[in-house]
């Protein structure tokens, strides 16, 4: 059956329908979208409507909706998850949460099969959300840290990973100095693709929509307005 997937963990808004016949209908942002101001509210639903229309599907023909739950931009994640949850509630579907870092890793692996990959999502305040994957297998659980800390951890490991994601673009200098390979700035590997969210969700169990929440990995700033 067909899946709709979306991701808003970075400044870009991504959506994709993976139809049951294997056809892909995707809005895949380019790497430049990662450094533009985020516009999830303006872009996400038009992208969703676009991929649904191109796939020629009605909501009742979907098997489930998949959503990247981060870690990443807090506001972006909330827009993506609030949207995915309401779409699922209104169409009576279940939701399949997927790690945005895992989806990013899947895209990086495709550009360089066989190597350990280091998906890095900009966490603001001088930090990145990071994880490490090898052939789809998680080596490091997602964490938030300064890029120097990530570099240190790589030095202590026995692999030379390929890093990508908006966090790797921002901290290219620190990472490359530590011997980490970083994909070229304009590489599509930096973008969390909704197609990869769909692919990872294909085998994942569905959850009731309202049980799905962002993976924040960081406590809120407790400053009153």
């Amino acid at each position: 059956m067909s899946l709709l997937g979306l991701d808003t963990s970075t400044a870009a808004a991504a959506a994709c329908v993976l139809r049951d016949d294997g056809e892909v209908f995707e809005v895949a942002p380019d790497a430049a979208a990662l450094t533009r101001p985020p516009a999830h509210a303006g872009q996400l639903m038009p992208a969703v409507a676009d991929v649904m229309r191109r796939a020629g599907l009605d909501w009742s023909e979907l098997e489930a909706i998949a959503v990247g739950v981060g870690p990443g931009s807090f506001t972006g994640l909330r827009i993506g998850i609030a949207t995915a949850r309401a779409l699922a509630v209104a169409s009576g579907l279940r939701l399949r949460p997927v790690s945005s870092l895992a989806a990013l890793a899947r895209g990086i692996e495709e550009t360089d099969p066989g190597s350990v990959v280091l998906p890095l999502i900009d966490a603001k305040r001088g930090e990145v959300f990071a994880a490490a994957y090898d052939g789809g297998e998680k080596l490091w659980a997602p964490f938030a840290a300064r890029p120097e800390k990530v570099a240190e951890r790589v030095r202590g490991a026995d692999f030379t990973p390929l890093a990508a994601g908006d966090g790797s673009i921002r901290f290219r200098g620190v990472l490359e100095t530590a011997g980490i390979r970083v994909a070229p700035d304009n590489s599509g590997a930096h973008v969390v693709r909704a197609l990869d969210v769909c692919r990872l969700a294909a085998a994942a169990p569905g959850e009731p929509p309202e049980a799905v929440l962002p993976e924040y990995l960081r406590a809120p700033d407790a400053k009153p307005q």
Partner: protein
Amino acid sequence: MANGAGTRHRVILALETSCDDTCAAVVTNVGRIRSNVIASQGLLHARYGGVVPEIASRHHLELIDAVTRDALERAGAGFDEIETVAVTRGPGLIGALLVGLSSAKALAAVRRLPLVPVDHLHGHVVAGTLGPEPIDPPYLALIASGGHTFLARVDDPAAYTVLGQTLDDAAGEAFDKGARLLGLGYPGGPAIDRLARDGDPNAFDFPRSAPGELDFSFSGLKTALLYTLRDLGDHEAGTRQADIAASYQRAIVEALTRRTAEALEREGLERLAIGGGVAANSELRTAVRGLGVRVWAPPLELCTDNAAMIAGAARFLEPLAYPDYLGLDAAARHSA
């Protein structure tokens, strides 16, 4: 109007998440409230002495679907009965607004329903048009809460004209800040209101500033309170707490009431609607009843932030058809 059986109206589902209350409501297109669910986060923010935007946004996301479902269940309405989805677009906390807006857009899009983006302040202004005895224009609205304090003229419920507003703190903020200085809880309005009942409102002389023609200013008030407390010292400030609270409250209520009287006079209006959380204040309710005009003071759940008032305003506005609203963004600041 599409109401097949003659008694059954199709309904507006409204969502409101502009500050720290997660709200959903079902209202008929003639203004009958079928449900009005408010999940307040008030106590969560109490220890910070104010609303923490990131915490508010996180809780909105946790609650929004359950609150929406609850509103539909209490109304005995299914998705099929919804004719229009309404949602607060702003002003408010941007991250909080985006939760409700994203949810509303997606709910509407699945069924290709029209969507009405609503100005939160417009909701407050027309809250009195809901319920069994609605207010009819022309009228004056006094809206005072922790986030806003303004006077508006309403000639047609589709719009409103702001006549005056606070230039600094909102009236509810003055209550909250005053309560904090007095060592009372958050939110401060109810705490001061309670304590003031046992105090002498003329014991202390706090300033009533009246800037511009019909504007308000409350920031000087908390400074005056701070100095008063300092002058009294801990012991005396403690024993005279009720007098201080009563005098402080009197200053806020008088500032609001005086401006309201001036606006009614200047505009030649004979009806007054009050709204916002401060409209729950017992002294304010009594004071505006002495103004010689007919007063609409809605029940508390229509004064504080709620989604019924958003549906209420939506009734008077032109909806956006599918797919025109898909790219709609929230607006943290007021554009009027």
